[in-house]
C-alpha cells in the first residue's frame, strides 16, 4: 500500500514537471506573416475524415502553441519543440464538430526566447469524405534501378500503415502500381516482376497470379485500368528507355521506344487487340476506361521522331475508342481530344464528369518534368481547367480519384523537386479545385527523414482483404496464362 502511494506521488511529480516544462506564450508579439509550416497546411480544404494535420514550424523555433478554433470548439497543442502533433481522439471529435465549417488556426512560436504570433490561417472542413485507404509504392527517386521496394496501404483516417507487398517476402523483386477496380478493395491488381513473377489479382481476398502477355507483345503489361464491371482491364505494353539530361536540374528522361494498348478479359483469360491500338508507327499508352465502360481513353504519339532521337518532338495526344463490355469488342474509330502539350495518365472521375490528366512539354514520363502539371477536362462542356491552385513548379502527376469524385490524390515533388509525396485535392460541386494538402503523418518529421518517394498513389474504399504474406504465397502459385482472343479488324 505504501509503495502504491510512492508510485502515485512520483507519477504526479512527473506530470507536474512535464506540464511545467511545456512552454506557454507570454509577452507575445504579433507578426504579419503566416507561419512557415511544413507540410504546407495553410488555407487548405480537408475532408472531415482525415487524420490529424500534424506539422512542423520551420526556422529556429524551440516552442510552439497551435490553436485550432471552430465556433465554440477549440483544439490546442503546446509543444516544446517545433512540431505540432494533435491527439487522434481529440482531433476526431473536433473534426466532427467542424464538419462543413472553417477552422481558424493560430500559431504562436518562440524564436530566440521571444514569442511571436503569426497571422492565422484556415482549414475548410468539408463533409465529403475521402476514400479512407491509400496504396502507394515506396521507391527511391531514381526509377531506373530499384532495390528494396514496398507497396503499402495507409488508412488516411489515422496513421495505420501496412505493407501489402514487401521486398523481403518476394525475394527483392520489382513491383509496380497497385490499382483498384472502381476503388473497391474486393478487386485490385499489382505486378510483381522478375522470373516467376506476374500480375497478382485480388478477388475478394483470393489472390491469383496472371501472365497477361502473349508472345507478340512488346512487353508485359505496364499501365492498366479496370473496366467498371471489373471483368476487363485495358493495359499498355511498353519498352521503356531511360535517358539523362545534360542539365542537372532536369535530371532524367524516360521514354517508350515501343508501346501498344490491349484489353484483357479476366474471365476468359484472353487478350483482345485492335490494329488501331497496336500501330507499330505510333506509340499508344496510358489506357483507362470511361466511367460507363463504353470508351477507352488512352494517349498516343507519332513514334517517328524517335528515329532521329528527337525526344522533344514526341508529344502524346489524348484519344478515345469505343468498347463494348457485353461483347468484349473494341470500336473502329478513334476520337482525338485537342490538348496542348504531351498528355499522360488520363483518369476519368467515377461520376464520369471529368478526365484528369498530366500535361508536360513532351514525352511520356512526367515524373521528371518540373513543368508537368495536372489539368482537368469537363467531359460535358469540353472546358479545360488548368488547376492553377493545384499545380506547383515541380512535377505534379500520377493521380487517382476517390469513389465519390470529390477528391483526387496525386504525387507531387513540390517540396524538393526529388521526392514525390501524396497530395489530396478537393473538387467541389461546382467543379472548382481547392488548394491541396499532403498526406498527414503521425510524426511531421517523417517526410524530412524518409529517403523514399511515394509513387502511384491510389485511393480505395476499404481495407484490402489480403496481406503481404498472402502475396508471398501467391508468388508460389502457377501462373495463369492468357491467350489471344478475338482481334478487331
Amino acid at each position: 500500500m505504501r509503495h502504491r502511494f510512492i508510485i502515485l506521488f512520483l507519477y504526479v511529480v512527473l506530470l507536474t514537471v512535464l506540464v511545467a516544462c511545456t512552454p506557454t506564450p507570454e509577452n507575445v508579439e504579433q507578426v504579419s506573416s503566416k507561419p512557415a509550416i511544413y507540410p504546407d497546411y495553410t488555407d487548405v480544404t480537408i475532408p472531415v475524415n482525415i487524420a490529424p494535420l500534424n506539422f512542423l514550424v520551420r526556422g529556429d523555433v524551440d516552442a510552439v502553441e497551435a490553436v485550432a478554433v471552430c465556433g465554440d470548439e477549440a483544439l490546442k497543442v503546446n509543444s516544446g519543440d517545433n512540431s505540432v502533433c494533435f491527439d487522434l481522439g481529440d482531433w476526431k471529435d473536433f473534426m466532427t464538430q467542424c464538419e462543413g465549417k472553417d477552422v481558424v488556426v493560430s500559431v504562436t512560436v518562440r524564436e530566440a526566447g521571444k514569442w511571436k504570433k503569426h497571422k492565422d490561417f484556415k482549414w475548410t472542413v468539408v463533409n465529403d469524405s475521402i476514400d479512407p485507404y491509400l496504396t502507394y509504392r515506396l521507391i527511391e527517386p531514381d526509377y531506373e534501378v530499384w532495390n528494396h521496394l514496398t507497396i503499402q496501404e495507409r488508412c488516411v483516417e489515422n496513421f495505420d500503415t501496412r505493407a501489402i507487398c514487401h521486398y523481403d517476402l518476394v525475394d527483392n523483386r520489382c513491383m509496380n502500381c497497385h490499382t483498384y477496380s472502381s476503388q473497391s478493395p474486393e478487386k485490385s491488381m499489382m505486378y510483381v516482376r522478375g522470373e516467376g513473377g506476374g500480375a497478382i489479382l485480388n478477388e475478394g481476398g483470393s489472390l491469383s497470379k496472371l501472365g497477361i502477355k502473349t508472345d507478340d507483345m512488346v512487353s508485359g503489361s505496364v499501365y492498366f485500368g479496370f473496366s467498371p464491371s471489373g471483368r476487363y482491364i485495358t493495359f499498355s505494353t511498353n519498352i521503356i528507355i531511360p535517358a539523362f539530361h545534360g542539365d542537372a536540374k532536369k535530371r532524367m528522361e524516360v521514354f517508350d521506344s515501343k508501346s501498344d494498348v490491349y484489353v484483357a478479359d479476366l474471365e476468359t483469360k484472353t487478350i483482345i487487340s485492335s490494329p488501331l491500338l497496336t500501330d507499330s508507327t505510333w506509340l499508344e499508352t496510358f489506357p483507362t476506361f470511361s466511367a460507363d465502360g463504353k470508351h477507352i481513353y488512352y494517349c498516343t504519339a507519332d513514334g517517328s521522331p524517335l528515329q532521329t532521337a528527337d525526344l522533344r518532338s514526341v508529344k502524346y495526344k489524348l484519344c478515345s475508342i469505343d468498347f463494348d463490355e457485353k461483347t468484349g469488342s473494341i470500336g473502329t474509330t478513334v476520337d482525338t481530344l485537342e490538348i496542348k502539350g504531351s498528355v499522360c495518365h488520363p483518369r476519368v472521375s467515377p461520376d464520369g464528369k471529368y478526365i484528369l490528366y498530366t500535361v508536360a512539354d513532351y514525352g511520356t514520363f512526367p515524373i521528371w518534368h518540373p513543368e508537368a502539371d495536372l489539368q482537368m477536362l469537363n467531359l460535358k462542356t469540353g472546358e479545360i481547367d488548368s488547376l492553377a491552385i493545384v499545380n506547383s513548379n515541380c512535377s505534379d502527376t500520377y493521380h487517382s480519384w476517390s469513389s465519390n469524385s470529390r477528391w483526387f490524390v496525386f504525387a507531387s515533388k513540390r517540396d524538393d523537386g526529388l521526392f514525390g509525396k501524396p497530395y489530396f485535392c478537393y473538387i467541389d460541386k461546382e467543379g472548382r479545385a481547392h488548394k491541396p494538402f499532403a498526406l498527414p503523418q503521425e510524426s511531421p518529421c517523417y517526410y524530412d527523414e524518409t529517403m523514399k518517394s511515394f509513387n502511384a498513389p491510389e485511393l480505395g474504399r476499404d481495407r484490402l482483404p489480403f496481406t503481404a504474406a498472402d502475396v508471398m504465397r501467391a508468388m508460389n502459385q502457377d501462373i495463369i496464362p492468357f491467350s489471344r482472343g478475338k482481334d478487331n479488324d
Partner: protein
Amino acid sequence: MNSKISKYGIYAIIALWGVACFTFFHFAYRHHLFYEEQNQLFLLTSDYVATYFNKPAWLACLAGDFLTSLYYYLFAGPAILTAMLLVAGDVLRRSLQKAGIRHGCFFVAIVVMTILAVMSLKTEFRLSSIMAVIIGGALFLCVSFFQIHKQPWCIIVDVIAVAFAHWVAGVGAIVYAILAVIRALVRREPWRWCSLALPFVPIIISLLTVNYYTLKPSDSILYPGVGKLTMPNLELERQLAVEDEYYFGNYEEVERLVESNDKPSLHELFFYNLVSAQKDMLPDRLMKYRPNELGTFEKIGPDTHILTTKRMHELYWLIGDMTYTERAAMLANVFSPSNRNVKMIKCLAETSKVSGNDKAAEKFLRLLDNTLIYGKWAERTRMDVSGKYADKAKMINTKDSIKTGDNAYPILCELLESNPNNTIALDYLLCSDLLLKDLKTFKRDYDHFCGNKPRLKKLYQQALMIYLAASETPVEQWSEYIKDEHELQRFMMYNSHRGDPAFSDTYWYYYDKMKLNK
C-alpha cells in the same frame, strides 16, 4: 593456488586475445569497419529510432547501429568491436557457468568470440548480430539470477523470455533457448524434456509475425543475421584504404599506397587517376600501370560490382557532370544496406548545391543535421564559406541535351563544350581515346579541344606521332603538332626496335603490344 594461477592464466589469454583482436582490426582491417560505418545513416531522432521496432531484434540493432556509427573515429571501430566481442565472450562464459557447466566455459567463450571475430571480417556481418548474442546471453543471466529454474513454472518464464529475446535480440532468442536447454539438462530440471521445445519458440513467433515484420520466417529467426566463416580480405582492405584516403583528401597517401603496390587493383588505380588528374598528371601517369582504370568505360546498373557503383560518383563529380554524379550517388545509396549510405547522401547534398537545387540540398542536409557526426559538415556545406560549390558550378554541363545510357564520351565532350578550360575532363577524354587505341577519335578530339591551346603532354605527343606516321603526314607538317624533339628522336629509335621493352613506358609500346580490355 593452482586454481588462482589457472584463473589468471585464462585472464591473460583473454587479454592477449583482446589485444590481438584490436591490433588486427586497427592495423589491418580498419577500412572495412569504416566501410560499415559509411553504409548506414544513423539518425538521432525518435522517428528513426522507432523504425527499429519494425523488425525483430530492435534493441540489438539499435545498439549495434549506433555503435557502428562511431566507427567513423580513428581507433573507435576496432576498440568497440573488440570490446563487444569480449563482452559477448564474458556473457557466454557466465551464462554457461550459470547453466551448470563447470569446466571449459572459458574455452567455449574464446571459441565463440573467435568465431564472431572471424565473421566480422565480412562487412555484411553487422555489429548488431554480436549485440544480439550479448543480449540473448545477458537475458539468460538475468533470468537465472532469480533462480527460477528451481520453480515448477520455470518453463513458462523461459518461453516468455525467449519470446522477449526474439523481440529485442532476434537471433539472441536462439542463444537464450540453447542456454536454457543446457541448463535444464545439466541441472536435471523436472521439466527438462519440455525445455527441448524452447528453440521452437522463435520459429513459432516468426511464423506468426510474418505480416508484422514482413520477414520470411527463416530470416526472422536469424535476424539481424548470422555471418560466415571467412578469411581476411586484405586485398579489399587495401582497396578500401585507397578509397578512404581519397575521400578524406589525403592525396599523397593515395599515391603512396598505390605506388607501394606492385600490382594495384583497378579500384586503386581509379582513385590514383583521380588524384593524378587533379595534379595535372593524368597523361603523365597513364602508361605507368597496365591495365589501367579511368572509369570512363564503366556502366552502372543492378549487375555492376558494388565497389564500382560506389566509386563512380567521384569521377563524375571531378569532371563536373552533376546529372551523372547524382545518378551514381543515388544508385550507390540504393544498393547500400537499408538503402542508406552517408557518403552518398553527402554527395547528393553537394551535387544539389552545385546544380542550384537548393531545396533538394536542404533535404539531404537536414538528414545529416540529425546525425552525431555529420551535423557540422552539413552546416559548413549549407554556408559554402569557401565558395567550393559556387566554383564547381562554373564547371558543370550547360548543354540542354538528352543522352541514353552512361557512355562517358558524350558526357566529356559536352563538359568541354560547356567549359573549354576543364582540363580534367579533357585529359579523361583524350586518355580514354588512347586506352581504346582509337587514334582517329583522339586526333579529332585533340584538334577540336586543343586546336587553339595545344596540350603538350608526352603521352599525347607520342600518340600524335603514331597518328601522323600512320596517316603518312608529310614530315614538314609534323611540327604543327610535335613540339618535343626528344620524344621525336625516341620515336625514331622505337621504330627501329618496335616492341622493345625498353620503351614499355611509352604509348608506342602500349599501342603495339598491349591487348585491349574487354
